């Protein structure tokens, strides 16, 4: 299970923020460049995330969910 610090939702939000920042025109060239590079990197990251091809399905049995949270089995 890949628990990256940045979720896909966060990455998309960050990319949108960067475009809004660049559009505001209120950053220096150097800052704009840094933001642009980060944006391109985020785009690449997001595409890679979307390339994951199959849904990971885990079955949580009633007994396990009744026993308590966090107890779950990897089902096929």
């Amino acid at each position, binding site marked *: 299970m890949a628990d990256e610090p940045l979720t896909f939702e966060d990455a998309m939000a960050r990319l949108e923020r960067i*475009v809004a920042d660049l*559009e505001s*025109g209120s950053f220096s060239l150097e800052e704009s*460049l840094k933001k642009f590079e980060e944006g*391109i990197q985020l*785009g690449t990251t997001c595409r890679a995330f979307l390339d994951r091809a*199959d849904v990971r399905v885990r*079955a949580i049995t009633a007994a396990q969910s009744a026993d308590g949270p966090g107890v*779950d089995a990897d089902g096929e």
Partner: protein
Amino acid sequence: MSCAEERIFSVAEINSIVREMLEGEFPAVAIAGEVSNLRVPASGHVYFKLKDATAQIAAVCFRGDARRLDFDLEDGAQVIARGALTLYDAQGSYQLVARSIEPAGRGDLERALRMLLARLREEGLFDVARKRALPRYPARLAVVTSPTGAAIRDILSTIERRFPCVEVLVYGVQVQGDAAPSQIIAALDAISERGDVDVAILGRGGGSIEDLAAFNDEGVARAIHRCRVPVISAVGHEVDVTIADFVADVRAATPTMAAEIAVPARAEVLARIGTLERAAAARLEGRIETARRRVLALAKSYALGQVRGRLEHAMQRLDHASHRSARAIDGSVRDRRARVESLGGRLAGLNPRDVLRRGYAVCADASNGSTITRASDAVRAGAIHIIFHDGAAGARVEGPIIREPREQEGIQSGR
């Protein structure tokens, strides 16, 4: 009137008259009774008797209506049958043609449901203000439904098709029967406790009001209400609205639609990323253009010698900028890359040092450092600096104005 003129009916005539009386008098009746002698011949019509302790009536439910029954009709069932009375001429017996049949007690159930609905609404469980927004791009979904039903199949295949890059936790529960509410409540509470689920779908295929009892359960309604994860309800079909639908943050008409609401379409997300990347590249180009114009303006308004260091630094930054941006842009914005690179080329051509290297020089007024662009200004200044690519030399202007080129400069030099 006496009976002198006795009227003799044929059997068909009297049956026909009685039939018309029956049909005219009882076009719509509701009869409560117990089903017995149930027969379903190959025709698909359903024949049975409705009886109580002391009486019975023949009844038929024709195939088209029988298909719409939402529960299992069987001998011994207490039902309310609605339809018209008529007479079956061939037998001379009268019967109920039932257009609809429902289990007795459903009326009580509906009344109880309406009261619960009113109470929960009063309490604010359905308030629109407390409906939570769904995440746009969920990473982990939980589905509470029967592990073997059509609902889970529909949900998984829809997610597979639209947005396969998620994890789905399937909480298999009974969705009908006595154990259903407590299992659904336990699953919702477990999902809420985990803290790592982005959105939950609670659903099942459609069914009769009895089948949907768990989704009209007060405990289930409260579990949805206290669940910290946004819940999408997906119970059956458009007509089946349950209390769970009212409490849920979003109501989907079917499990398939719930999955479509829960996850975006991958193709649309890819298009969105492309749009954002192109917008970022376009903005950066604009930014480089602005910087280029500033450097140009700088070159015109100050003595080159005095600001050369700054200019060179600016040019370097621009070169660096176009290089970096060109490097950063990947294949998805290749068309942009070409434009940024040509922009970089144009910037390199603007580097004043390169111009000076080719044998040109710039004159500046020695007294204030301003760039001299006219011969008359040079004569007026007298003392000037001549700026070469590697440094400046002091000089005095001695000669008069030899020629003062104007707009025709290009043409003259072409001669």
